[in-house]
């Protein structure tokens, strides 16, 4: 049926075929899949011809970075999944009004679910993935499953609710496993970035070389921006054989050449070091004199005229500005004649007027892990996390990437203790901005041995941290109206029963089952969110509910999507919806008890809002 929703994440292979078709329409043709269904397929022979001399095949040598199962990792990134995100009102804060999201689940799956809606929308991604130190726990993506198993795999967690295992150096697939874990995730994340967006990835010596190679592959070497050295601790210790490790790396890649970093504002230390304090003559804050003389013969430019100092001394040189511009600067009180008033004139630059400076690839004064840990201790009176990034580090990243006139998306899909959310909240409060965070975290069990921990999973810690971080700012920035909430969503198996996807495999005798193709424990709001994922609706959109003729009708994003999942929807309800002219209307199949009803509903829409796209579940 044409108007039936897919209720499945995007199939990236389909998207790739579409891209090929856009570039080489003659290379995409029609064929049949294993089940004999017509599909679009790529004619490789034709594509090869189009690319003639630029094709490498088989065992020919080439520059490449490879590891076992890389192909499967690509398949894993592309395969669609039958999963959904369920809203959890009870754990959210200000569910109705907030634009922030906290998503619990395997980030590979979450990134897939976000593909349709958040494609090309994220301005900045920061992640702090496992460094593969030998003690990390990795996600176990089972590549051995067939695609179909993969799609329908529920219950991939072990008895403890974990899908994790410890990757030790004794493991024969030490780097392989880590690469297979990180590759599909970064590949999916890259699609979410805007053309002027950036990804920042924290990493240390263990995998920095490999990570850089795969990022070169995913983003393109030309979009490499920097490999920042960040000083994560000030002390020296003999924790490594030859070297005391004080630093780690932050890899930066832009999505395209359009990604340009902001200048950093001048640090107070730099101002202290390089600027003079305000004086009677130069009262507008810290300032420094800048020469305006031009050396002869160097550039060939410059203007020659006499300047007489207030003390009466005459300087006849080659100046950088024409006389008129100089006189204007003098009038504005922006010329300095030295301490005795007879020196060679210099231009006065105020710190406040500075555009700032480019950031460097050496961050030794940002804040250390120790401060990160202290921040968590202040909130929890308890070391709920061993290593935590300091919020100042993330705030610095926000500062050099984000346009404060916009309301931008910041994504962290290895969010751990939720430092990124804390940093976004602080940044918004301080700068009166409205940037939005999307955090993703697998609900890993908190190590039971950790003393005094009253938290069950890392997500519980993360959510609690965000709540406390918001409360802590109360009073401090009372007058400001920053977003004090977040919507919690949890990944779960699709809302639909198997019959929804493969109706042909079910016999007519199972009529009852066919009638109710939705799992019994799912609410209408669960259904709404799965529909939102498919119809490109931001998950933070405003959701209004109203009762029309006794039926609950959702109105999402002020009339973009209206939906009613109740039984026995009447013509009156349909009429009320149609009059509001939504862009999409979604209802349950069983309301269309017979063809007559379906025809009636269609007629009502034809009359009031023929453009409304109608879909059924």
């Amino acid at each position, binding site marked *: 049926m044409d108007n039936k929703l897919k209720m499945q994440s995007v199939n990236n292979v389909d998207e790739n075929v579409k891209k090929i078709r856009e570039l080489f329409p003659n290379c995409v043709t029609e064929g049949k899949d294993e089940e004999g269904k017509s599909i679009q397929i790529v004619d490789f022979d034709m594509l090869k011809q189009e690319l003639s001399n630029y094709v490498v095949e088989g065992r020919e040598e080439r520059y490449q970075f490879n590891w076992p199962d890389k192909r499967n990792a690509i398949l894993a990134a592309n395969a669609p999944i039958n999963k959904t995100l369920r809203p959890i009102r009870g754990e959210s804060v200000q569910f109705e009004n907030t634009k922030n999201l906290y998503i619990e689940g395997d980030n590979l799956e979450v990134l897939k679910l976000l593909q349709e*809606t958040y*494609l090309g929308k994220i301005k900045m991604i920061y992640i702090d993935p496992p460094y593969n130190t030998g003690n990390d726990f990795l996600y176990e993506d089972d590549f051995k499953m067939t695609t179909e198993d993969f799609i329908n795999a529920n219950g991939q967690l072990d008895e403890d609710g974990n899908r994790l295992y410890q990757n030790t150096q004794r493991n024969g697939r030490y780097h392989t496993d880590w690469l297979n874990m990180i590759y599909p995730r970064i590949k999916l994340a890259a699609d979410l970035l805007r053309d002027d967006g950036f990804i920042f990835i924290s990493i240390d010596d263990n995998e920095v070389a490999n990570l850089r190679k795969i990022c070169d592959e995913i983003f393109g070497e030309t979009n490499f921006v920097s490999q920042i050295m960040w000083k994560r601790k000030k002390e020296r210790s003999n924790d490594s054989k030859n070297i005391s490790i004080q630093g780690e790396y932050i890899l930066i890649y832009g999505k395209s050449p359009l990604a340009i970093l902001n200048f950093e504002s001048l640090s107070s230390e730099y101002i202290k070091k390089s600027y003079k304090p305000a004086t009677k003559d130069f009262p507008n804050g810290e300032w420094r004199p800048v020469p305006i003389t031009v050396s002869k013969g160097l550039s060939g430019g410059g203007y020659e005229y006499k300047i007489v100092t207030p003390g009466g001394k005459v300087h006849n040189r080659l100046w950088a500005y024409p006389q008129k511009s100089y006189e204007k600067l003098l009038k504005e009180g922006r010329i300095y004649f030295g301490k005795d008033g007879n020196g060679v004139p210099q231009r006065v630059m105020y710190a406040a007027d500075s555009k700032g400076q480019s950031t460097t690839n050496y961050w030794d004064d940002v804040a250390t892990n120790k401060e990160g840990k202290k921040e968590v201790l202040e909130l929890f009176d308890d070391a709920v996390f061993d290593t935590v990034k300091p919020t100042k580090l993330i705030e610095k990243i926000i500062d050099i990437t984000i346009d404060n006139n916009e309301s931008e998306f910041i994504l962290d899909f290895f969010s751990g203790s939720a430092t990124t959310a804390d940093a976004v909240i602080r940044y918004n409060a301080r700068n009166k901005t409205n940037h939005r965070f999307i955090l993703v975290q697998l609900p890993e069990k908190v190590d039971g041995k950790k003393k005094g921990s009253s938290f069950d999973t890392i997500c519980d810690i993360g959510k609690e941290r965000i709540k406390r971080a918001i409360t802590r700012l109360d009073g401090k920035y009372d007058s400001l109206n920053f977003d004090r909430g977040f919507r919690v969503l949890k990944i779960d198996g699709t809302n639909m029963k198997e019959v929804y996807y493969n109706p042909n495999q079910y016999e007519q005798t199972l009529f009852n089952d066919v009638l109710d193709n939705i799992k019994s424990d799912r609410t209408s709001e669960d259904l709404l969110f799965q529909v939102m994922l*498919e*119809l*490109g609706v931001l998950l933070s959109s405003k959701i209004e509910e109203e009762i029309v003729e006794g039926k609950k009708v959702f109105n999402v*994003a*002020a009339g973009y999507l209206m939906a009613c999942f109740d039984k026995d929807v009447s013509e009156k309800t349909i009429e009320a919806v149609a009059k509001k002219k939504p862009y999409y209307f979604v209802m349950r199949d069983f309301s269309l008890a017979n063809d007559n009803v379906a025809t009636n509903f269609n007629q009502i829409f034809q009359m009031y809002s023929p453009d409304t796209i109608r879909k059924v579940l």
Partner: protein
Amino acid sequence: MSGLPKSTMMKKQIPKSAIYKKYGMDSKAREKFDNDISRIYIVNEVSTRTMIIERGLEIDSFFVVQIMLKNKKYDESNIIKITKLINQNMIFELRYEDKKSFAVYRGKLITSDWRDDESEPMKIQGLTLDEVWKQLIIQIGDIHVEPQNTLDEQIQVNDMKEKILANIKSLDRKARSERQPRKKFEMVEKINELKKELGEL
């Protein structure tokens, strides 16, 4: 213009050729002008000299200029050109066959609907020329001036509203025909933003 006392009436033609000559219009501009406009007359002079009224701070006189059109759908720029060329306060009475419409320039051309000759005359309201002038503009543009706004502010607000509404309309048309949900949603978000902006005006 009906509604004004007889003492203000006059009938003096402004020959088009005089306009072309005085303002050095080239043949292309002339042709464009001539396509719409057949004849131009000054039909009223309103000032302390022609009727009993106090002069205002801004306005000490204005003229009613009758323009005989060749097309009902005329190019506004031709009328605007007259206002730019003749440095006077003017109300235009545009005539096409047996219908008329009024126009006045105030940052943009404000026009009334087309009406019959027998329709109700414009009301001359106010004790000063400033007020009379202002009331005429309000009548021509059918402008509802909110208490917090001056007339010019209101014209500006209405202008912005019109632009936003046109923007919403064209976006809505695009959004409804867009097949990709994500792009569709982006457009609707933009529409909702514009609607919010509209509400804040």
